[in-house]
């Protein structure tokens, strides 16, 4: 292994990173996941931790760009250079740049995450069968609205599971239109456009207006790449047109003719000779995870290795297994030392006398069941890394963790009080509470744990009931957060989705679930506590919170421990 001259390294172990923009090749959640996994490769063997920031300057700023992208090292179109990163330090140092003229995948061809449909956002299954015919790409067959779709199992005819594929007719990303779909035709600088365009931009990214008149409304978003679209060339986003004519000859598939580099290309109109419109054919692409893991190695202080199987070897090759070689591990541990301490373990369920929930036993009853652990006064909320849930009860912020809770009261100078035993105040509840909220109209307390919920009215309790009774799908393992939205409406969060509960009707409203990242852009998709406090919405992940104002702008990212618990 090699390190940079002077053994450049970070002077702290809690590294932050920020994803500045996204590639149109993959759904943003897949990109987030690839980067998170790439960081995890390094955090598994060092004491380093990686925390994602959503605004401001992070140690490692990650961006996609094409050709000249703002630093002295331009990219070179498809293939060749894939990415680069700078060694640790201030400013551009530590940053990682990815060439968006590449086709970014997970290394084995297009990765198409669906939206809507009935497959809960599953990936397309290629090939899939529809009406007896096999499809290896998304298709508009069987639809009249021209929306591309795919089967998410091998046999749509049998399983009927499907979702919609990335398309500008369905959504955009980035821009300022909250992911709204393109509106065609739209007017830009007095001209009318019937498809996404790169006009008006110097970075080569395709965009569209999300109203019929950009000049007036200034609303726009970037167009996601369809799985059938060509890469690069001068027709990015268009599908191949088969057959097409090149030098007077007809081609019905991609060809390398006319090129010295052997790359497959196609015409995107029926005649290349007349129109000169072309692009490279989609291939397996490059694994964003593997390339990112390599680049993050640079961002942490590793230079190129000359061991062919090492992750830090300069050439790309696809591997499925854990990508770190002994040489990489020795290199990074030379800089930061080995990982110390045990891996975090999930809290063990406590012994409880509460019977397993039975919907037949739904009745308001004084309860006699309890958790049995005594309160340990030495338990310090300031020493806890994260909480099971955080919520406001009677105007006081409550922090729940493993059978106990703490509270912060402005009446008490905003100092932490507790620990208190959950079982003493709410005897029916289990030790681990995933989410809770107080219905502001009735003052009833709703508690969620796993797939069950309880409703406390004073000392009387109803439940446990199954969350399916509220209309939540049985695939949900837990409700992770709750936000009060006006009178009698509460948003319930789980995974990447949220639902709106009509508290009075005790039913989920129609039109849900919705994607959290579409409505609440800039907060972690995997927040484990979501709550409302003093007019702000808080999304917590591990020991950090993202605070969002009523205009849904993230206006602060901070530590739960210091800012909320006042430790």
């Amino acid at each position: 292994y090699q390190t940079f001259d002077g053994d450049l390294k970070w002077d702290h172990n809690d590294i932050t990173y920020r994803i500045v923009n996204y590639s149109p090749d993959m759904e943003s959640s897949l990109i987030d996941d690839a980067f998170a996994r790439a960081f995890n490769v390094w955090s598994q063997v060092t004491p380093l931790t990686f925390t994602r920031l959503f605004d401001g300057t992070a140690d490692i700023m990650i961006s996609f760009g094409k050709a000249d992208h703002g630093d002295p090292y331009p990219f070179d179109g498809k293939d060749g250079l894939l990415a680069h990163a700078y060694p640790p330090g201030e400013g551009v140092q530590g940053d990682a740049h990815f060439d968006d003229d590449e086709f970014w995948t997970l290394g084995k061809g297009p990765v198409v995450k669906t939206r809507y449909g009935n497959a809960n956002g599953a990936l397309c299954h290629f090939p899939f069968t529809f009406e007896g015919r096999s499809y290896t790409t998304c298709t508009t067959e069987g639809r009249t609205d021209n929306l591309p779709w795919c089967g998410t199992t091998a046999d749509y005819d049998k399983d009927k599971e499907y979702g919609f594929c990335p398309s500008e007719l369905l959504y955009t990303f980035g821009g300022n239109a909250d992911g709204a779909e393109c509106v065609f035709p739209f007017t830009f600088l007095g001209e009318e456009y019937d498809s996404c365009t790169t006009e008006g931009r110097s970075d080569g990214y395709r965009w569209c207006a999300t109203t019929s008149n950009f000049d007036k409304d200034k609303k726009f978003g970037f167009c996601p790449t369809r799985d059938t679209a060509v890469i690069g060339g001068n027709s990015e986003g268009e599908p191949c047109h088969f057959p097409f004519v090149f030098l007077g000859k007809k081609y019905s598939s991609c060809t390398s003719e006319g090129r010295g580099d052997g790359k497959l290309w196609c015409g995107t109109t029926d005649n290349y000779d007349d129109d000169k419109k072309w692009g490279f054919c989609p291939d397996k692409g490059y694994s964003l995870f593997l390339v990112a893991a390599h680049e993050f190695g640079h961002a942490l202080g590793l230079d190129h290795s000359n061991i062919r199987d090492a992750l830090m070897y300069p050439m790309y090759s696809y591997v499925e297994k854990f990508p770190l070689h002994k040489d990489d591990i020795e290199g990074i541990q030379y800089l930061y030392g080995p990982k110390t301490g045990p891996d975090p373990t999930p809290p063990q369920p406590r012994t409880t006398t509460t019977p397993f929930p039975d919907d037949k036993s739904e009745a308001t009853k004084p309860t006699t069941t309890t958790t049995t652990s005594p309160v340990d006064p030495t338990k310090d909320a300031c020493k806890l890394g994260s909480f099971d849930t955080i919520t406001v009860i009677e105007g006081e912020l409550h922090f729940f963790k493993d059978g106990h809770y703490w509270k912060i009261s402005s009446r008490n100078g905003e100092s932490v009080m507790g620990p208190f035993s959950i079982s003493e105040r709410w005897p029916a509840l289990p030790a681990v509470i995933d989410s809770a909220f107080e219905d502001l109209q009735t003052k009833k307390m709703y508690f969620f744990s796993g797939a069950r919920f309880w409703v406390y009215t004073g000392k009387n309790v109803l439940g446990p009931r199954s969350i399916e009774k509220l209309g939540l799908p049985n695939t949900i393992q837990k409700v992770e957060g709750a936000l009060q939205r006006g009178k009698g409406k509460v948003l319930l969060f789980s995974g990447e989705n949220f639902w709106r509960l009509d508290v009075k009707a005790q039913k989920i409203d129609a039109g849900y679930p919705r994607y959290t990242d579409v409505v609440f852009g800039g907060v972690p998709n995997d927040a484990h506590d979501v709550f409302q406090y003093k007019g702000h919405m808080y999304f917590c992940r591990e020991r950090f919170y993202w605070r969002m104002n009523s205009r849904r702008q993230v206006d602060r990212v901070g530590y739960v421990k210091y800012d909320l618990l006042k430790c």
Partner: protein
Amino acid sequence: WSHPIKSTFVTFPGDIIKNKTDSELAESYLKKFGYLNTEQRSGFQSMVSTGKALKRMQRQMGLEETGELDKATLEAMKQPRCGVPDVAN
């Protein structure tokens, strides 16, 4: 029917990658990744020879150190890779 196909190479509009000869490709590769550079030490400039640069590149890539632009070296230069130079400058 076994006549060799005579390929015609064209310049594709919008293509950043230009057709280069092997020696042009090698020279730009060696320069870009730090093997062939003008080193400045105490005001003295020296150009590392191409053969020496090729050997250094071959050693880094685990190739036979011939100092020649052989087929294996040329193939390695065409592989997709990280843009960080192999030799710091």
